[in-house]
């Protein structure tokens, strides 16, 4: 409830409650669950809440945790936005909308930059720019549904020849036989 700014910002708070206050997990378990949660799709806060709730209290624990994460802020949002919509056509309210759009644009731009940086860290400049341009052409110019593009990328990731993996396994095998 206190974590402003989307799911990822709530993680330290969840950590404090789960590891510190209630001691359901230790530090290492928590960071492992977090790392794995990040390799899966979907919002991270609800995944963490659901999984930890499930471990602590079974199905009922899971439901409790997810509802506790999600419900209060949705209700708040509904309350604010529906009352907002009632006065929507008032010129002042239109002005408010106009004032907010560029700010949301800036926030989106900084998020975009974050993801470009992550792309660079993951692939390096050359490959990163190539991939960025590639997905731009496919999605924005050829108008392919982003779901298909991302799905396709995931399939490539799984089926791509695993040379590196095999080498690693061989190395491991070698060191074991040594």
């Amino acid at each position, binding site marked *: 409830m206190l974590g402003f700014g989307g799911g990822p910002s709530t993680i330290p708070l969840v950590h404090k409650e789960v590891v510190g206050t209630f001691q359901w997990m230790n530090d290492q378990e928590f960071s492992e669950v977090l790392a794995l949660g990040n390799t899966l799709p979907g*919002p991270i806060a609800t*995944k963490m809440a659901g999984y930890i709730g499930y471990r602590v209290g079974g199905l009922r624990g899971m439901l409790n945790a997810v509802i506790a994460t999600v419900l209060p802020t949705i209700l708040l*949002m509904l309350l604010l936005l529906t009352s907002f919509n009632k006065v929507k056509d008032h010129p*002042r309210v239109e002005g408010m909308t106009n*004032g*907010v759009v*560029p700010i949301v*644009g800036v926030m989106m731009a900084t998020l975009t930059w974050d993801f470009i940086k992550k792309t660079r860290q993951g692939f390096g400049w050359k490959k990163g720019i190539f991939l960025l341009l590639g997905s731009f052409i496919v*999605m924005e110019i050829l108008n392919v549904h982003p779901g298909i593009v991302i799905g396709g990328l995931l399939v490539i990731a799984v089926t791509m020849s695993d040379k590196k993996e095999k080498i690693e396994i061989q190395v491991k095998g070698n060191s074991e036989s040594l």
Partner: protein
Amino acid sequence: MIYIQIFIAFFIPGIIGYGGGPASIPLIEHEVVSRYGWMTTSEFSEVLALGNALPGPIATKMAGYIGFEVGGVLGAVTGVLATIAPSLFIMIVLLRLLFKYKESPKVKRLSMIVLPAVAVLMAGLTFDFFQTSYFSNGLWLTFVIAMVSLLLIEKWKVHPAFVIFGGLVVGAIFLS
């Protein structure tokens, strides 16, 4: 029928939105604005602005509110379920399996390979927002508000909620 549409609109971002809630925002926008036409870009940005100003995970807030707008309480429940259930299910069922393969390059590559696509989607959404603002506020005002809020958020680390609130006030006074 509408509930099936709501489910699909939030199921897809939920299942392919790697990188947490924020990564699924452009995907949600694609479904809600471009595909089903439930909202305009500027309405979507309003919801996003308010969602960002409120605490808690952003993807479920969006799903809950948009679901409610389109299909009432049941619509809200459908939207939220579609957002969280698939990934949570995978997490609980596959966690043990994933533990085993967590060092595998395949698993690591999975979350990395979608980054550039998500970045492009976000850039597109950024462009949409600025374009909307350009049409209603003109070039200079858009530029000034954008620069001021960029400095406030990135340089002086003012909390986004205050910046959005400021934008609302400035808009109500000067832009109406």
